[in-house]
């Protein structure tokens, strides 16, 4: 290795290292899958199927926005499945009692339920320093139990729901299905919040280097609480939309759904150890998982292989994410060659 210094430091614009590269990789992977699925079944890339895909993935998208905020701070939230059930059940029961209730009010009611649960978790994690996985594991059981008790074993079927309530998920605004519209609005808000607001950037800072964040006066505890409260609200909203979409509210709604949401975030490049995860990556991760859920039954892959394929895709995505990061470090090291 020749010893002389790396020649000249011209005004080289140091490209944003691996991050951009990762999203590109994900996009290429999705494109390949699209082609493969299309070959296996010509109705995959039809407008109707795309619409179905988006409808089914909208709720997953809404939840993964909240989960990404939690993951960026290095935390995790296992309780959202239960929050969806409780929020959905509460709004459905109220809808049964007061049929004329305005659907938007039902949504607010669901979000309120979510806010309460999210705030309790935020308090436990930020104020009492409990590890997020333990706090949300405890809350998951408590909230799921509460849902069963609230419903008293009863359930709400579609005929007991006002048409307005059901239209929440089937109706359209500006030609786009409500669910997809809400998901897009939330994604835009998330993109704006994470890239353009002070609080948003500070959430990244907390995840990236907690000590430095404390020293430079970033209110870590308050932001942690905010993140879990937001996740709660979004889970509450998703609960109402879930009940409206499937026109039924039961005790065991969305049992174990939190793992799908975490998988979507991980596919989108959000690192569990906190600090990194981009809006563009997240959208691709959600779409990729949505595609798997939509296409695998379509192209007649035996249902028994579906779970295995999903697991392998997640592991592959996560390992390539690490490989890309390692490559950047090697690059930076070579720059310092003596």
């Amino acid at each position, binding site marked *: 290795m020749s010893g002389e210094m790396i020649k000249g430091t011209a005004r080289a614009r140091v490209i944003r290292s691996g991050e951009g590269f990762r999203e590109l990789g994900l996009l290429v992977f999705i494109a390949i899958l699209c082609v493969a699925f299309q070959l296996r*079944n010509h*109705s*995959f890339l*039809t407008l*109707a*199927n795309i619409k*179905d895909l988006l409808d*089914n993935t909208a*709720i997953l998208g809404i939840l993964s926005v909240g989960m990404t905020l939690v993951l960026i701070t290095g935390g995790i939230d296992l309780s959202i499945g239960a929050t969806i059930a409780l929020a959905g059940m509460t709004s459905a029961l109220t809808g049964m009692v007061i049929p004329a209730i305005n659907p938007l009010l039902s949504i607010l009611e669901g979000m309120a339920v979510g806010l309460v649960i999210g705030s309790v978790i935020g308090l436990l994690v930020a104020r009492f320093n409990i590890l997020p996985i333990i706090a949300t594991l405890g809350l998951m059981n408590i909230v*799921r139990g509460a*849902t*069963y008790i609230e*419903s008293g*074993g*009863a*359930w709400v*079927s*579609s*005929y*007991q729901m006002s048409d307005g309530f059901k239209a929440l998920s*089937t109706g359209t605004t500006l030609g786009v299905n409500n669910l997809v519209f809400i998901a897009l609005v939330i994604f835009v808000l998330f993109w704006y919040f994470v890239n353009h607001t002070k609080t948003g950037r500070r959430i990244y800072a907390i995840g990236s280097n907690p000590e430095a964040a404390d020293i430079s006066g970033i209110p870590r505890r308050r932001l942690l609480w905010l993140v879990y409260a937001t996740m709660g609200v979004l889970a509450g909203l998703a609960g109402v939309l*879930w009940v409206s*979409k*499937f*026109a*039924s509210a*039961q*005790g*065991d*709604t*969305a*049992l174990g*759904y939190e793992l799908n949401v975490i998988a979507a975030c991980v596919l989108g490049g959000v690192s569990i150890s906190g600090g990194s995860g981009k809006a563009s990556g997240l959208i691709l991760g959600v779409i990729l998982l949505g595609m798997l*859920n*939509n296409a695998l*039954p*379509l*192209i*007649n892959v035996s*249902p*028994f292989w579906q779970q295995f394929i999903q697991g392998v895709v997640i592991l592959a995505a996560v390992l390539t994410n690490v490989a890309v990061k390692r490559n950047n470090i090697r690059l930076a090291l070579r720059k310092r060659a003596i």
Partner: protein
Amino acid sequence: MRKSFLRTIMVLAIMTVAATSLVAQNYAIVFKNTGNPYGEKQMAGFKTGIEEQGFQAILRAPDQPTAEAQISIIQQLIAQKVASICIVGNDFDALTPVLNQATAAGIKVFSLDSSVNPAARLTHVNQADSVKIGQTLVQAAYDMIGGKGEIAILSATSQASNQNLWISYMKQELTLPKYKNVKLVKVAYGDDLRDKSVSETEGLLKAYPNLKCIIAPTTVGVAAAGKVLTDKGLKGKVFLTGLGLPSEMATYIENGVCPYMFLWNPIDVGYLGSYVATALVGGKITGAVGDKFSAGRLGNYTITKAPDGGTEVLLGPPFKFDKSNIEEWKTVY
């Protein structure tokens, strides 16, 4: 304060002792999992039946639909020396060991709705003859699609024993010459999850564009399919039938997506189960073929041979719900 504390303990003790001696026996029913509407109604029917006869009913269901959860519940019931256990099995074979223990402890064991291995049960209360269910559903699909075209089945989990039983009889029925141009293209599994049932239904519609009819022998699946067909406006193009709750299916029967479907009144199933329980405990029947007993408001029943080698009691033919009677039933269950 101490004195009153002592007094309450004394009262409590007396009460428990009294409770056990007063009531001759407790009758228990164990459903698949909690929060399942169909199960709630079935247990309600069982409760009315038992209390009608002056006994006490114990209604149990685990939070997860797993065999191991039901096993620990059954062990708790054995410890409580209940008179009989009516089990709605999450698994055909897995409950055999624990049920044998219950029988050994002198408890009358029989299954209801979802059967268990004949070796572990005295008899099985079947809402309708599994073979007849298979035939009726295939016949219904045949009528809806005018005898010609592709049909698909949307089931619950791949492990649900009653589902697999009905599907096998449906396939057997389809081998008859009458159904020669009715083609079963796929059996999909919605795992009794709403979101999976929806995506599986959408998958069926797109994988088989000229699919004529979907048979969903599960309350969750048939409701999810109803919603998808309604949203996609496929009324008249793709028919739907299966086993569904009138309350859940009301909208889809009224809007014509599902001309008619079948089920049995889960309340009646539970009610019949309660009478099987008391009959077994009272020694009126032993569960053998030919035994006769009366089941309160439902009249008399005889025990017949079951296709799986054990014996069963048939509630009666599956009840048909269509536009004419859905209005009346949708508020019942």
